[in-house]
């Protein structure tokens, strides 16, 4: 033993059952007497509704119940979804009714729920429910919706502005008056969606005799679901157990609390039988939160040298129909500005605007990809204006190593000053240039252009605030067989947290990984938890697992010292036993130590031990938020005949501090980059003028496929974070955050001969041809 676990490419403990097909996702769970739910959803984007007849649906053989707003139980605290993240700054908060009462605000909003003996019959019954719609004004375009006279997304509001927020530091006006030149930029960032391969799903199992509800949900945040369902139904948290079993991807939209979770809880209680709802893919397009339509208008002030001195501007953020995830997406849009760049004066305002589209909430990176994109587009625009190479331009503006810890001037959501703890931004830039053979590519590009081939290279540098607290606890317990059970409030959707937790424990306790069982995503197994959001789990569980197992180790040594009658200094923990250093034949196994701390055997706890079990719990977190960072390069070739883009290569240098498992980190980064490439080139959620979603299948909504993805080359630097004892930083979103910027910069770079400015993404082939001078094409 004594094998290093932390930092090793340890195979995942999660894989065995998944590669055999033995995974257990919500829809895989069958309970005796289980019924199936389906929803009738609004076919109009904004309308007054009246349910005129449910009798035919109710009368269909196999139908157990038809629920509408009017027939929801009166015992509910509210028939409207409770606010998940209320905040005083929210001017007008609108959450959906659990089932629409009088007005629907987007296509896909739930109007009625049918519970039946099969999903087929439930869907049959939905078709029999009669609803009268009276059309209302439809707000689709967020710019129009933001205007005082714009069409209202909700008829009871005076305007569509949910909230106005800003980030402001330095003296912007003075900086603008002192700069050499200014530029104005306007661009649109598109929303895209979640598209975890497993859609959402909820299974409720109410046990009348016990007065207990078990709710299986494909969620990132089981404790949030427990809290919200408990409040919504007015029943104690202790009577609700939420289990997130195997979850088929989350990416953000599964971090919220949805009406369906409350409704399934209501249905199983009312019907006294298990009820399951499995979101189908079409519902996923209209009922699961999407990401981030934003219009950015920025003005940049800079020196002739390339130094950017000031930025001001405004963001119009499309919230979609409801604000069921508070302002987190808006806040994480402004908070990361100005990214890794040293820009001392900044003032950006943001309006969160309601429209009659699907609600938005964080998707991989939340608002950070938007902020990173804005900064990297600014850098490239100024570079082009000044004829400075974009790489040099970045070098000029990046925060330098001697600046750490660096305070850009912006603030965290809790009001404290943002601090970049550590990093080597310029070093990463140099490294990624080297990897991509940047200088040679510029030569290659020149020659290719002469032959009518349009190559482009794009850069992006980013930071990411990670490891957000307050905690994600881990309990480490050695059982009487010497096996270790680690339980945690952190839930996983495929990231490999169990492996990482096991690695940390295995290293500290010096035992084999296969002797550690990690239990997570179950409120019945651990009292408190938050969830897998914001690249926070590795940092929080890493610290807690390390701390808890260190406490267990201390406890084991102390007890062994008593039992062996040896001084603790003479003992060591190795290979599952506490041993006398000088005499390896004298030892006591962890199993025996655990047995001694099990009072049923011992009669009483040994002196000096005030808690049962060879176990300890820790809720250790980072002192402040560690910042991951990175530099990316994309290389593309644009076909100006078709508008097609071929991604040639993609390079990442990433710094997430001390790496717990490089295989897992690389997996997170590569997957994240491809998500970003999807945003940049493929994924487009199109709504027509009436608010009808036009891309609700995977033929029309394009997710990135293996056939178009390049090889993604990943390298790391490790600057340990001083913010926590293990030097950890988060890694879950660092692939996605810079990728859109790198891609768009590369595509724009390829189109330099056409003096193209890319004002929106995804960049479709059609848009490419619009950018390419048509006269030049005609001459082709």
């Amino acid at each position, binding site marked *: 033993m004594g094998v290093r676990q932390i930092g090793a490419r340890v195979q995942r403990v999660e894989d065995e059952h998944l590669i055999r097909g033995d995974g257990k996702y919500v829809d895989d769970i069958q309970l005796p007497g289980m019924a199936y739910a389906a929803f009738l959803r609004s076919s109009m984007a904004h309308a007054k509704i009246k349910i005129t007849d449910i009798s035919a649906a109710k009368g269909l053989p196999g139908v157990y119940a038809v629920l509408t707003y009017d027939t929801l139980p009166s015992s509910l605290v509210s028939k409207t979804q409770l606010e998940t993240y209320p905040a005083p700054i929210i001017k007008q908060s609108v959450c959906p009714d659990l089932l629409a009462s009088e007005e629907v605000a987007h296509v896909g909003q739930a109007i009625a729920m049918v519970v039946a003996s099969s*999903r*087929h019959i439930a*869907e*049959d019954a939905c*078709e029999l429910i009669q609803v009268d719609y009276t059309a209302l004004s439809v707000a689709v375009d967020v710019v129009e919706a933001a205007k005082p006279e714009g069409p209202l997304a909700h008829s009871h509001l005076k305007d569509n502005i949910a909230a106005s927020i800003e980030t402001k530091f330095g003296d912007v006006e003075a900086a603008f008056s002192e700069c050499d030149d200014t530029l104005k930029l306007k661009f649109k960032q598109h929303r895209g969606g979640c598209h975890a391969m497993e859609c959402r799903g909820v299974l409720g199992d109410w046990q009348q005799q016990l007065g207990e509800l078990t709710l299986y949900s494909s969620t990132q945040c089981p404790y949030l679901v427990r809290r919200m369902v408990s409040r919504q139904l007015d029943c104690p948290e202790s009577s609700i157990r939420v289990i997130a079993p195997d979850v088929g991807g989350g990416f953000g939209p599964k971090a919220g609390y949805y009406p369906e979770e409350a409704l399934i809880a209501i249905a199983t209680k009312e019907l006294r039988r298990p009820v399951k709802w499995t979101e*189908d*893919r*079409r519902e996923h397009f209209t009922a699961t939160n999407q990401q981030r339509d934003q219009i950015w208008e920025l003005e940049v002030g800079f020196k002739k040298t390339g130094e950017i001195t000031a930025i001001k501007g405004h963001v119009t953020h499309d919230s979609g129909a409801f604000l069921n995830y508070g302002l987190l997406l808006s806040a994480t849009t402004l908070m990361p500005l100005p990214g890794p760049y040293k820009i001392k004066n900044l003032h950006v305002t943001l309006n969160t605007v309601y429209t009659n589209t699907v609600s938005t909430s964080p998707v991989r990176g939340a608002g950070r990809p938007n902020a990173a994109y804005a900064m990297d587009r600014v850098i490239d625009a100024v570079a082009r204006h000044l004829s400075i190479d974009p790489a040099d331009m970045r070098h000029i503006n990046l925060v330098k190593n001697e600046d750490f810890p660096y305070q850009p001037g912006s603030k965290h959501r809790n009001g404290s000053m943002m601090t970049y703890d550590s990093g080597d931004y310029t070093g990463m830039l140099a490294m990624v240039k080297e990897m991509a053979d940047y200088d040679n590519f510029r030569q290659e590009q020149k020659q290719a252009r002469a032959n009518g081939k349009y190559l482009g290279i794009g850069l992006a540098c980013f930071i990411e605030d990670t490891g957000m607290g307050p905690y994600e606890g881990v309990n480490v317990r050695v059982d009487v067989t010497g096996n270790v059970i680690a339980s945690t409030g952190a839930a996983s959707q495929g990231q490999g947290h169990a492996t990482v937790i096991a690695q940390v424990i295995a290293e500290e306790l010096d035992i084999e990984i296969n002797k550690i069982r990690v239990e997570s995503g179950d409120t019945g197994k651990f009292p408190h938890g938050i969830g897998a959001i914001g690249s926070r789990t590795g940092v929080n569980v890493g610290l807690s697992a390390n701390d808890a197992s260190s406490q267990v180790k201390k406890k084991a040594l102390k007890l062994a010292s008593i039992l062996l009658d040896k001084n603790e200094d003479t003992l060591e923990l190795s290979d599952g036993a506490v041993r006398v250093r000088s005499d390896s034949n004298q030892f006591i196994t962890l199993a025996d130590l655990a047995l001694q701390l099990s009072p049923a055997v011992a009669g009483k706890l040994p002196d000096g031990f005030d808690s049962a079990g060879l176990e300890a719990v820790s809720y250790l977190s980072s002192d402040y938020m560690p910042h991951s960072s990175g530099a990316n390069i994309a290389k593309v070739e644009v076909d100006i*005949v*078709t*508008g*097609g883009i071929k991604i040639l290569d993609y390079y990442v240098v990433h710094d997430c501090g001390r790496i717990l498992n490089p295989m897992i980190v690389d997996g997170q980064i590569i997957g994240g980059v491809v998500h970003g490439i999807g945003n940049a080139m*493929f994924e*487009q959620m*199109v709504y*027509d003028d009436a608010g009808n979603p*036009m*891309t609700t*299948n995977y*033929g*029309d909504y*394009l997710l*990135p*496929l293996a*056939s*178009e993805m390049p090889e993604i080359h990943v390298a790391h630097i490790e600057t340990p974070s001083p913010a926590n004892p293990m030097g950890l930083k988060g890694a879950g979103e660092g692939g996605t955050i810079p990728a859109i910027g790198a891609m768009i910069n590369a595509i724009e770079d390829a189109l330099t001969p056409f003096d193209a400015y890319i004002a929106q993404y995804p960049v*479709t*082939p*059609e848009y490419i*041809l619009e950018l390419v001078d*048509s006269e030049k*094409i005609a001459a*082709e």
Partner: protein
Amino acid sequence: MKASAFTYYKPNSLEDALGLLQNEEDAKVLAGGQSLMPMLNMRFVQPETIIDVNGIDELARISVTDKLEIGALTRQKTLAKDPTIRQHLPIMQEALTWVGHFQTQSRGTIGGSLCHLDPAAELPMVALLYDAELQVASASGIRSIPMQEWALAYMMPSISHDELLTKIIIKPWQGSHGYGFQEFARRHGDFAIAAAGCLIKIDNNIIEDIAISIGGVEDVPRRFTECEDVLRAIKYDIDDIKMQVLKPLSKINYLDDSLVTGAYRRRLLRGLLIRAVEQAAGRS
């Protein structure tokens, strides 16, 4: 996303199938199911009856004389690998590299593609190039439809509810000629935004004969005869061809929808058409 209820029949002979088609008012024929099944699952179609023709072995044969007779039930995967097709209709195998994915080709059939008649479907484009003859059967007999008359309107082939497409008869071009097939889709296996197929016979640098089919740009895939007419019998000069195609291209009634504009389809088709002609000429 579960289909609404229907009655399912699986006839084992053509005769039985035709009898069912004659008697069932609201029936859909299920062949490979790669287009029909999604529409059933999404309840875009809710037929009372499904007639599964997969048990009719005689519909799945390929035979060759001076013509190729391809049974309507022949799977795309079979066409993609069949040596007879490779020898006589290599363009069909090239076109199939653009059709869906290997898992959908496992079940998808040529007859299904022709009857579903997606505007961007590749196999109808190939059939168009050769003026294929389509044979449809009903309880009252067999009739033959020239491919150019097959498409009546958007996704509406010239076949009535009691008829079944049984075979596709293709007469390969004789003598030295070349073929080209060009398509553009956003991702591998997606429906084409535009596609162009070309057969060309060049003698002494003169285009002796040419056939062009286009897909994805209009309501239905079709022969681009306006373009063939301007190119036939002229000298093969690609720069000249680039100019010659402009006028016929302006006569197309381009699809224009919320995802792709007609203006883009036009520019794209022009590029693809030139590439298809060049590719065909290069192989002639």
